[in-house]
C-alpha cells in the first residue's frame, strides 16, 4: 500500500504567474513523456517482473514518479494562481481555461488528454526494461526542451531537479537490465521471457 508524505520532494516556490509556461509544463504531467505515464508504467510493470531486485527498483522509481506528478502539478498550480483574464487571453491559455479554469488536468502541451497509450506493460522482461530506459531518456529530453523555453529561475530550478532524476533513473534501469541479462543464457537471450516461459 501507499502512504503520503506531506511535503514536496523538492521545493517549488514561484513568485510570478505565467499561464504561457503552465501551458507547456503541463505536458510533463499528462503528455507522452510525462510523470503520470512514468508512475503508471513502472507500478504496472512490476507485477510480471520475476526478480526481486528489479521489482524493488520498479516499485521505488514508480513511487518517486508519484512525487514528481505532485511537483509538476504544483508548478502548474502556482503558475496559474492569481493569473489575470488578460494573461489568460494573451498567453493562449483560454483553450485550457474554458474546460479546467485554474484546475489541474493531465494533458499534453498540445491539449491531448493523458492516455495509457503513452506507455507499455508487455509482461516481457526485456521489452519492459528497454521501454523504461527509453522513457527516462524521453522525459529528460522534454525537460531539456522546457529549459530551452523557460527564463524564470523560480521555474527552472525544480525543472532542473526533475531532469537530473531522469538521468539517475536511467542509470538504475541500466543496472536492472544488466541483472536480468545475467540470469539469461546465451541461447535464449532474446527469445525467452523469464516472466512467462518455463526453462
Amino acid at each position, binding site marked *: 500500500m501507499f*502512504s*503520503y*508524505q*506531506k*511535503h*514536496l*520532494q*523538492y*521545493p*517549488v*516556490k*514561484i513568485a510570478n504567474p505565467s499561464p504561457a509556461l503552465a501551458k507547456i509544463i503541463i505536458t510533463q504531467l499528462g503528455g507522452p513523456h510525462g510523470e503520470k505515464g512514468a508512475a503508471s508504467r513502472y507500478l504496472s510493470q512490476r507485477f510480471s517482473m520475476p526478480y526481486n*531486485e528489479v521489482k*524493488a*527498483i520498479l516499485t*521505488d*522509481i514508480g513511487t*518517486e514518479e508519484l512525487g514528481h506528478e*505532485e511537483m509538476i*502539478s*504544483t508548478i502548474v*498550480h*502556482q503558475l496559474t*494562481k492569481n493569473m489575470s483574464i488578460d494573461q489568460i487571453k494573451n498567453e493562449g491559455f483560454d483553450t485550457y481555461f474554458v474546460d479546467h479554469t485554474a484546475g489541474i488536468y493531465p494533458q499534453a502541451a498540445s491539449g491531448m488528454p493523458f492516455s495509457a497509450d503513452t506507455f507499455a506493460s508487455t509482461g516481457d522482461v526485456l521489452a519492459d526494461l528497454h521501454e523504461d530506459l527509453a522513457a527516462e531518456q524521453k522525459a529528460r529530453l522534454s525537460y531539456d526542451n522546457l529549459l530551452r523555453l523557460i527564463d524564470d529561475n523560480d521555474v527552472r530550478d525544480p525543472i532542473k531537479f526533475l531532469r537530473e532524476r531522469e538521468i*539517475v*533513473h536511467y542509470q*538504475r534501469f541500466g*543496472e*536492472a537490465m544488466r*541483472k536480468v541479462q545475467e540470469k539469461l543464457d546465451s541461447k535464449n537471450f532474446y527469445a525467452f521471457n523469464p516472466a512467462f516461459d518455463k526453462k
Partner: protein
Amino acid sequence: MNEKEKMLKQVQMYCFALVDASLFLDTHPTDKEALKYYERIKEMSDKIQDEYQKKYGSLNIKNGEKDGKWEWATSAFPWEVQK
C-alpha cells in the same frame, strides 16, 4: 527564506538523500558503504523530521495529531506557497 522554510528544506534534503540511496541499494543490495551511508542519513532524517513535526505540524498521517487536534487536516498543503 523563513525558519519554517529552512527547516522544511532540511527535511526535504534528508528525505531525498534516502530516496536516492535506496534506489542505489535496490541494484546494489550488499554494498557496505551504501548501507552505512543509508543508516547515517536515516538517523539524521528521523531527527530533523521529529523536530519539524514538533514545531510546525505533521509530515505524515501517523503524526496527524498535534495539541489535541487532527492537525493533518487543518495545516497547509505542500502545493500552496507557504506564508
